[in-house]
């Protein structure tokens, strides 16, 4: 049975229900939506033992004031919005118990833009076209298709007790600790690089752009050096993947985000890689963005490193890890991390992988079941 889980005392600046997105309906003009920073949402879920794609609250800039209506397990990931429970600041990236009646508050934006709150079992709103994500423009999904407001009561789905883990935490050295104000974002060329002058490509990868105030869940508008087209900005409208850097006639790039329309009519010079799109979503207006060109193969390596972190959180999850993630972990070796050694269980053995997080190479220790 589902249950009343959360009462909204104040909604914060923009708090919506999101999951990993709505797929299969773009051909009918329905945007994907979902978390702007999917890694943080998935990590929040794994920390409390949910399926990775369970619905969470995406809290923007100033978080909400919420009352928990049940004893539950929660986690907060992504931006640091100075969240407290009953007046006491809490850590992100770990599961914690909250008692019925506890009140969550947010002191505002300390670092990053968007934080995710997962509750044990996940948030229960009706699935629309296979997803609980909110698409506000067309009032699809989420809680009545809109951001939360005062007085709303959110239900929770029943949790699976066998997946329940206390105090699970992302190892401190693996946290995307600090988003900061200067972001290096990796992108691959295409799909319409040929619509731009060679100079435009150099400019894109050699310049600094700043995030405009007009940035939102649809797109991040950037301000900086002009990018020139060969003939014009318009193309015959085509499908927009996640993260394309489209450039209208004014020459200013716009990175298309979660709520982008499925099709668009501006040439796309390059596409932000999937691991970095969530980090871009943590950039605030005024922050500096610089782009680094990478290949799809490099993007895949970055993704496998990120997946390794996520799967390392839960041995049970690891046992169901996709082959590519397991292969990537098996191919790597290194010294076990002291941080995890204490939690090593007799039937599990540890493997260590190299991961690059925020430009730092770190060892990722994961546990797998012994044969």
């Amino acid at each position, binding site marked *: 049975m589902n249950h009343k889980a959360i009462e909204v005392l104040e909604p914060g600046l923009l708090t919506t229900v999101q999951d990993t997105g709505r*797929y*299969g*309906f*773009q*051909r*009918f*003009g*329905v945007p*994907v939506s979902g978390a702007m920073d999917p890694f943080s949402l998935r990590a929040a879920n794994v920390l409390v033992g949910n399926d990775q794609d369970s619905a969470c609250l995406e809290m923007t800039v100033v978080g909400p004031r919420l009352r928990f209506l049940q004893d539950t397990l929660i986690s907060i990931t992504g931006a640091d919005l100075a969240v407290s429970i009953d007046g006491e600041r809490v850590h992100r990236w770990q599961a914690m118990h909250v008692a019925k009646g506890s009140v969550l508050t947010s002191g505002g934006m300390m670092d990053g833009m968007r934080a995710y709150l997962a509750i044990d079992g996940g948030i229960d709103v009706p699935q*629309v*076209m296979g997803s609980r994500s909110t698409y506000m*423009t*067309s009032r*699809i999904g989420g809680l009545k298709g809109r951001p939360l407001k005062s007085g709303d009561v959110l239900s929770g789905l029943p949790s699976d007790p066998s997946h329940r883990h206390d105090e699970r935490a992302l190892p401190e050295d693996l946290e995307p600790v600090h988003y900061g104000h200067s972001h290096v974002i990796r*992108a*691959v*060329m*295409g*799909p319409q690089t040929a619509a731009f002058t060679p100079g435009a490509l150099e400019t894109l990868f050699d310049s600094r752009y700043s995030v405009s105030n007009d940035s939102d869940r649809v797109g991040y508008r950037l301000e900086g050096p002009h990018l020139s087209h060969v003939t014009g900005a318009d193309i*015959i*409208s*085509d*499908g*927009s*993947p*996640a*993260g*394309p850097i489209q450039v209208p006639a004014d020459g200013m790039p716009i990175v298309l985000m979660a709520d982008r*329309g*499925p*099709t*668009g009519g501006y040439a*796309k010079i390059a*596409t*932000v*890689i*999937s691991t970095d799109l969530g980090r871009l979503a943590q950039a605030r207006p005024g922050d500096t963005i610089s782009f680094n060109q990478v290949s*799809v193969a490099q*993007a*895949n390596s970055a*993704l*496998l490193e990120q*997946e390794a972190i996520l799967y390392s959180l839960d041995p049970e999850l690891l046992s169901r890890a*996709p082959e*590519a*993630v397991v292969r990537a972990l098996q191919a790597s070796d290194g010294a076990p991390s002291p941080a995890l050694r204490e939690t090593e269980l007799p039937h599990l053995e540890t493997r260590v992988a190299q991961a690059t997080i925020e430009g730092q190479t770190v060892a990722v220790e994961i546990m797998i079941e012994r044969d």
Partner: protein
Amino acid sequence: MFKTPVISEAGDRALVVEVGDSIDPETNGRVRSLMLAVEGMDVPGISDLVPSYRSLLITYDPIRTDHDALVKIVTLADSNLDTAQIDSPKVVTLPTLYGGERGPDIGYVAEHAGISVSEVIDLHSCVDYRVYMIGFAPGFPYLGGLSEKLATPRLSTPRVRIPAGSVGIAESQTGVYPSASPGGWQLIGRTPVPLFEPDRQPPSMVVAGDYIKFSTIDTEAEYKAIQAAVAEGDYQPEVSPAEPEVPVPGDA
């Protein structure tokens, strides 16, 4: 149309398959066929297919598949299109009340074209319009085939709210607003049949490659009767198969 599709990277989770570089029914038909063929192959790791005028966007989970594997799949699907079992596109008929309160700009469109209102209605309702793409808003069809005579500039001041079902003209395009929204199209009529409903499966009546045809509703009473039937769930729109399309490369 290209002899073989041109496939390019669109980030680490998508590829674009271009089957041509112009807006024409043959190219768009091949996009549709290719989408259905790829879908029919049930490839693990493909997360979505987005057809448009002349290309197909394939989004995928790079943990479960990769660019090279998908290039092989697409190439195989494309080379077998001539023999693949692909359903014909359909023609959906939308009963439409032209003029009056439902189509306040029809007089302007007639004046602009130098013809009578009834000629506007005849010209607009005699064509099977091709759905080249759905975009802009959920269920919004980009239609091709409007009579050149009916091409009319947009309103100089867009309306704040256009009711759902409004049929409009903007330059050489015609279309239907599936839900209420602001907009600058010249409104010539309205259909009581909803093109898009989030809870219906599939939510949109048409997809790229299908056709929409407008039939005339003569009276407000008839419009209201259809509207009531729709609300009761008793209305079935007229759907017929389109003329068969044989998707062959331009110079094969």
